[in-house]
């Protein structure tokens, strides 16, 4: 008898627990896949922080469609294999329908294949290579979007700026042969620069993941006497190469893309250089200033000072807001509806007003930043 009572009690408790579970408010899981370790961890931290800020803001306003947004953060290391593993984990194990990430094109491309096949919406905040949203046959991957402009655009802006503003006639192109992003920018630069009447006086490749000594390449740069050196690599490579260039007495300015945008860029070594970027904190638009304030309130450095978000944080914030607005406009947690909503969106983001073209690339502008006297200063804004 006693046993029966206790058994009944247990069954009752279990039933209550099960019913309680069903009544709990619905949750919407969003995966944030960012390179928190590996070669570019500052990119990953900024991306994560930007995305989490946007999620916090939505949750403070009762979430999306009355669902609490739950972020699932995974480290994808800016490297294809860990990125694929992370994507498989969040899709198959956590059953997410939405992914924000990756930062690096070479990680986003293999990830997008998996997401698209599983009908999971992926918005890459910063992967600029065309192949992220377009497959080998040139067809748009239905469920993949990005929040940033693409490689050809950055290379084009760089070449236009070099020709019109720097009056460069001769350019030397340095690129990492194993990095899709760097190659994409370099090719676009080369094409536009030649079209505008300039000459490419030399082109050299290297392996950015392992090379620390750029002296032999720089000796060639020096003997080619270019007006500008286009090196659209990440800050860690720029730190090494631009310092060695200064030691070799090379005075032509270095130019690059958004890979330069990091607090770890050696501004002394890169002094005199220019790079294209997605946004600048000195932009007076209210979207930028509100974002700056919210980010600074949430994230402080070791000294307790508000952190100024970089472009990666801004784009991750934009990507997350784009996604959540898309879900809200769609009115349901259904990736086909959300995809359609995103295709028709017009969204005033931190990095400019975003609409999507047929290949799921945003249409928006770029800024040119000048590295000067130990500071990164806003130079000009270029519209597409």
């Amino acid at each position: 008898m006693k046993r029966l009572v206790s058994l009944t009690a247990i069954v009752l408790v279990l039933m209550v627990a099960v019913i309680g579970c069903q009544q709990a408010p619905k949750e919407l899981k969003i995966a944030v896949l960012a390179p928190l370790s590996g070669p570019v961890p500052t990119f990953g931290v900024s991306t994560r922080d930007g995305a989490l800020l946007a999620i916090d803001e939505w949750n403070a306003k009762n979430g999306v469609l009355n669902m609490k947004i739950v972020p699932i953060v995974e480290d994808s290391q800016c490297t294809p294999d860990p990125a694929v593993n992370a994507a498989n984990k969040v899709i198959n194990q956590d059953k997410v329908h939405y992914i924000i990430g990756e930062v690096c094109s070479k990680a986003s491309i293999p990830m997008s294949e998996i997401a698209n096949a599983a009908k999971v919406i992926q918005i890459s905040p910063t992967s600029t290579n065309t192949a992220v949203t377009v497959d080998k046959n040139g067809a748009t991957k239905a469920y993949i979007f990005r929040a940033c402009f693409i490689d050809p655009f950055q290379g084009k802006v760089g070449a236009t700026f070099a020709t019109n503003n720097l009056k460069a006639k001769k350019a030397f192109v340095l690129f990492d042969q194993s990095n899709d992003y760097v190659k994409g920018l370099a090719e676009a630069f080369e094409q536009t620069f030649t079209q505008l009447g300039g000459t490419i006086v030399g082109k050299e490749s290297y392996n950015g993941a392992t090379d620390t000594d750029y002296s032999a390449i720089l000796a060639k740069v020096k003997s080619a006497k270019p007006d500008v050196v286009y090196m659209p690599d990440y800050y860690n490579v720029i730190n090494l190469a631009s310092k060695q260039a200064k030691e070799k007495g090379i005075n032509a300015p270095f130019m690059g893309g958004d890979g330069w945008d990091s607090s770890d860029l050696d501004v002394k070594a890169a002094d005199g250089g220019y790079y294209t970027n997605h946004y600048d904190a000195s932009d007076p638009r209210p979207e930028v200033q509100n974002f700056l304030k919210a980010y600074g309130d949430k994230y402080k450095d070791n000294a307790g000072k508000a952190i100024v978000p970089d472009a990666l944080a801004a784009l991750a914030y934009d990507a997350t807001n784009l996604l959540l607005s898309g879900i809200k406009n769609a009115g349901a947690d259904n990736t086909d509806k959300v995809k359609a909503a995103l295709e028709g969106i017009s969204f005033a983001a931190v990095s400019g007003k975003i609409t999507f073209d047929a290949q799921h690339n945003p249409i928006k502008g770029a800024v040119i930043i000048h590295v000067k006297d130990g500071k990164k200063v806003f130079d000009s804004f270029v519209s597409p």
Partner: protein
Amino acid sequence: MPEKSETSAAVGHGLRRNRAQLAWVGNGFLLLLALAAAYLLISNLIKNPIVFLQSVLDGLKLGFVYALIALGYTMVYGIVKLINFAHGDVFMVGAFTSFFAVSQFNLHKWPQMLFPACPVGISIVVGSLTVIILSMVVCTLLAITIERVAYKPLRDAPRIAALITAIGVSFFLEFFGALQFVFSPRFIPYKSPFDVTSWYVQSGIHPIVSGQPSPDNTISFSNIFLIILIASVVVQLFLQFLVRRTKIGIAMRATSFDKPTARLMGINVDRVISFTFATGAAFAGLGGVLYAIAYASIWTQLGILPGLKAFVAAVLGGIGSLPGAFVGALIMGQAESLTMAYISTPMRDAVAFTILIIVLLVRPTGIFGEPAGEKA
């Protein structure tokens, strides 16, 4: 059955002839490769001697750094027959120690801070030396710890066990260092204890001012190149002296020759082995600081490739031989630099490791290696 044995003899003979032919083809191929390389270098030397000389100078800078690391590999191998793969990571710890000493504690400025009257020049020299010595000491302690914890318990285990442990230690240092509260996984712009200045040669030596172009067709070099060169040569001479002329050196040679007999002769073999690890690590630490100053960007996997290339250098020179490590390192530096200049930059590592394969195929004992001789 005499027939059968005849056949097998004939088959054996055929095999031998076949092998001889294969060796001939292999040697011919290597000879062709060498001729092609020589042609490439000489034609480019005639075409543009300035670029050639500049590449040779840049290669020397790399080579002398590799020499500092390779000495540690070769000494440890000579004594305990262990390829200490954690050596490259000790090199990395040396670079980070100096970075923290300079950026957090301003150790490079201590003479000026304690004695404001001290002239700036002397202050920089003394301060930088202090930073270097601190890094060497830290690396020495680290190496002794690694030896005690990871290698000593395995001294009588099969050699493969110790080798795998060495790889484990190497990974441990890399990924423990990559933790946020240790060294962090970032690429850190290195803060140098002194300013790297460079000069160009054009009927005299002139300094290059940062941000101003130097004249075309001139050779340039920097103060850190000279420091690396001097440090590397001094260390090599010091080690020669240590091994040939001192009591501990004799003990090291005896230990490398025959461990049980050395022990019977009253040599404290364990202490000698610890001492060898410590000396090698100290010079890896020195190399780490100089490398970081020269290339000015550090991260926790900084030691992997220089470590591997120094290992190739040690094998090329004849592992176990001190002059061998030195010569091997210089050859590696040149091979890399000239590959970058005249073949293509991405080929540099391929060429470096092709050298390893060729040495192992053609002369596994290396240039200075003797099959069984005096090693230390």
